[in-house]
């Protein structure tokens, strides 16, 4: 979200999701004018919905963190990621927005919830023509330039192919 706030076309996210839950803990981490401006606007219009975890959910967060820490074949995750995972699992939320690679690793197969980073959000926006451009690669480069967030070359190539397939299917119809 902190990266996303620096993206000029950040408001396209409102065309993708009806609303986004945001933990109070994350809100406490927001201090720059840019991010405060985005979060303030999104809270004011009801797009962001602030939440706190219950005591039971907090216990589950700790259990999740401990279980991953004990597993020698899995990366550890920290409290912010464990919190969103537990909240999503507890309330049947299908998509979690996070750039955390460990969280993405843990939910890559089970996809419950799906973990979307900026690349996935951009893929959805480009695939659905919420961003209209004939040069998809340039849009990823623009995001990287504006946010100083790089995408792996192989991931971008894979996503471009997927978007082209979606657009091709749409054009055929």
């Amino acid at each position, binding site marked *: 979200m*902190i*990266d996303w706030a620096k993206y000029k076309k950040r408001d396209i996210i409102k065309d993708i999701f009806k609303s986004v839950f945001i933990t109070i803990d*994350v809100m*406490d*981490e*927001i*201090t*720059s004018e840019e*991010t405060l401006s985005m979060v303030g606007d999104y809270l004011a219009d009801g797009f962001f919905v602030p939440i706190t975890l219950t005591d039971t959910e907090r216990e589950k967060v700790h259990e999740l963190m401990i279980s991953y820490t004990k597993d020698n*074949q*899995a*990366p550890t995750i*920290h409290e*912010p990621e464990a919190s969103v995972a537990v909240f999503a699992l507890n309330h049947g939320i299908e998509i979690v927005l996070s*750039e*955390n*690679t*460990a969280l*993405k*690793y843990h939910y*890559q197969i089970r996809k419950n919830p799906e973990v979307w*980073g900026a*690349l996935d959000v951009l893929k959805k926006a480009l695939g659905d023509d919420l961003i209209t451009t004939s040069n998809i690669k340039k849009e990823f480069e623009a995001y*990287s330039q504006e*946010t*100083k*967030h*790089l*995408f*792996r070359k192989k991931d971008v190539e894979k996503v471009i192919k997927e978007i082209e397939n979606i657009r091709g299917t749409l054009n055929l119809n």
Partner: protein
Amino acid sequence: MNYEEFKKEMEEDKKIRKESAEWNFIKNQPLRIKKGLEALIESGDLWVASRIAGITLDEMNDIRIRANIPMIG
């Protein structure tokens, strides 16, 4: 992706962060910020880096941009 592939990807990302980083800028930061930036280069985890630096995530993000450390993913 299995865990070995995941670790390999993390190592590749770390190499990019190391090569991109403005080391002179990092060396001249106060101790906690410097250690936070070093942790960010190692782990890629902005939250961990911000805890070490003793600042908010947002502040850490601005400093990592000034230190030319890309987020990758």
